[in-house]
């Protein structure tokens, strides 16, 4: 037991000291976004986000509150033969982690690729019933382009695969977000 404790203390010391070095190298800044939309031809979500952006190592993490700004008729398969149709209000509380990489010039703008994941819970309710939407855990990969207009402003345009379980809405969506990196 004593040996284990000593081993833990030694390893944690190494880990934390490495983390300390990493933090010194990193340049962490806050990030905000109020104009992020995930959409396809059948649906649209609006997102408010806040998080951190390591501008040195070009990765970011942020918390999102997404919602559909209107009530939408949706169909959900209940069994083999039953499809329920509701007017739905939904919220998606999620976290994004993404990494930007490569720099190239596209239409005179410094552009990068980005890749990451969005993970969270989809919640909601329906008109005409007290029954809420069954909370759904969703994790989706994100890939796309990041247009760096300046050190403080970028626009991310990408693809997400958002499996929300709706019969009448495809899972493929475009994500479009204007991000402000705070000083």
């Amino acid at each position, binding site marked *: 037991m004593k040996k284990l404790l000593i081993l833990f203390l030694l390893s944690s010391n190494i880990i934390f000291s490495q983390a300390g070095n990493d933090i010194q190298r990193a340049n962490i800044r806050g990030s905000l976004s109020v104009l992020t939309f995930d959409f396809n031809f059948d649906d649209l979500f609006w997102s408010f986000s806040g998080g951190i952006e390591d501008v040195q190592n070009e990765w970011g993490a942020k918390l999102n509150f997404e919602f559909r700004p209107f009530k939408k*008729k949706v169909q959900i398969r209940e069994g083999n*033969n*039953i499809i329920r*149709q*509701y*007017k739905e209000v939904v919220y998606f509380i999620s976290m994004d982690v993404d990494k930007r990489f490569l720099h190239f010039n596209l239409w005179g703008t410094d552009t990068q690729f980005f890749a990451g994941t969005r993970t969270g819970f989809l919640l909601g309710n*329906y008109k005409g*019933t007290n029954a809420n939407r069954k909370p759904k855990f969703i994790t989706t990969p994100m890939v796309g382009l990041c247009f760096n207009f300046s050190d403080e402003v970028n626009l991310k345009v990408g693809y997400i695969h958002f499996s929300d379980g709706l019969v009448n809405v495809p899972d493929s969506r475009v994500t479009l977000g204007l991000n402000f990196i705070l000083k």
Partner: protein
Amino acid sequence: MKSIKSIVFIVIVGFAFSHCTRQNDDCDPDQFCDTLPYDSGDVTIKVTYNGNGIPIIVYKGYADQNEVLFYDTLWSEESTYYLPLGNRYAVEAFYYEANSTIIALDGNKLKESSFWNCDEKCYELAEIELDVKKL
């Protein structure tokens, strides 16, 4: 910066005054004013009619509370029912297809509808629309 503050101040004051004076501005002595409150209102149910009757269930409250008000079959795109005010109503419409049944649900509260005219409260027929048209 100063001019922005002035504009914001003027806009806020403008909104405040417009709200205070709205009742006096809305006075029309010739307008018909029904001062007796209604006890019921119109609930219009809209369905997708394809030549076959569409069975519906109308609930008082939320559908999951299961307080059935009545059953009906609609033979047109919409039907209107005169129901008591102050209640929430929900409707389910059933569409039978070859391999599946689609159950469409909608609900809303039927609230009293009124407006002010010359400092008098005037009542009008309250209406809600429950849209259970198939996607």
